[in-house]
């Protein structure tokens, strides 16, 4: 038992040292509520059959509610991505609204959002 304790004491710092890089990304508190956004982006490519636009919309609409409860803003690109998923589903009014939301939250997106809004007008 005593030997075991010694080993544990020796090993613990090593384990912590080894684990430190795992938490490197989590040190600073988040500005944004991330929810499913990254999973959705990954899923579109890794599991395209499971992450159809309707699934993306469902997951991201959930995130919008949860972000409000968490009192955190949604991340850059979130509203644009959701708008694009609405566009793919033919829900053009909602797509329009989300592209405008992206522009309002992040004016840096204006040139690209205006281009996507222009494409909606042609539909």
């Amino acid at each position, binding site marked *: 038992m005593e030997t075991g304790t010694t080993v544990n004491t020796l090993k613990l710092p090593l384990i912590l040292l*080894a*684990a430190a*890089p795992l938490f490197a990304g989590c040190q600073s508190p988040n500005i944004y509520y991330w929810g499913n956004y990254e999973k959705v*982006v990954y899923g579109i490519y890794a599991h395209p059959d499971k992450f159809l636009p309707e699934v993306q919309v469902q997951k991201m609409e959930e995130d919008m509610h949860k972000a409000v409860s968490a009192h955190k803003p949604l*991340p850059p690109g979130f509203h644009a991505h959701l708008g694009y998923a609405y566009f793919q589903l033919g829900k053009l009014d909602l797509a329009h609204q989300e592209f405008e939301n992206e522009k309002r939250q992040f004016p840096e*997106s204006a040139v690209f959002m205006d281009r996507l809004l222009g494409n909606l007008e042609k539909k």
Partner: protein
Amino acid sequence: MKTRFLFPCALALTLTGCVAPYDYTNFRAHPPRSLLVLAPLNESTDVRGTYGYLSGVTRPLAEMGFYVFPVAVVDQFMKENGMPTAGEMHQIPLNKISDVFGADAVLYLTVKQYGSKYQVITSTTTVAAEGKLTDVRTGVTLWEGKAIVQQSSSSGNALADLVVVVVDQAINSSTDQAHNLAPQVNAQMFMTKDHGLLDGPYLPKEKPQ
């Protein structure tokens, strides 16, 4: 005790750790607000490298205070406009990027290594990447960096390793283990002091708790 045997031993190597701090003269002269992240070139042997890595890039950059264009929408938009591969996207002239996206800077990424290798009783997953940030208006390089993260299933206990490797191989055949390391690679590449990016405009001066 059992859980500890299964705890993966992570080994992070900071390639830039022992050289002089990055020269941020250009970055400070043209501090970007918005970053356009293009699909990375993939030099690894795993086709999943491109998007398994790309999907983990937005978060660290946004949390450092930059506007990051929606990576999947940008990728889809380019494909619809005649640029189906990352190689073609990386060739787009900067004035075109300015016209279409209005981005301040473009981040060109390359996945150097991505995936798992199996030795007799261990498996090692490696992700390595390089990045270059270019100012859209002037074409000057604002920043360059690289990072590599390796994770081994070895615990130093042969019997436990045998159990781990059997479990690993069962999981590895269907899952993309390297994808889980992408956040660490990006944290290392973008957030390491004196070698990563400088803070973006949305980073609060007083960090939220």
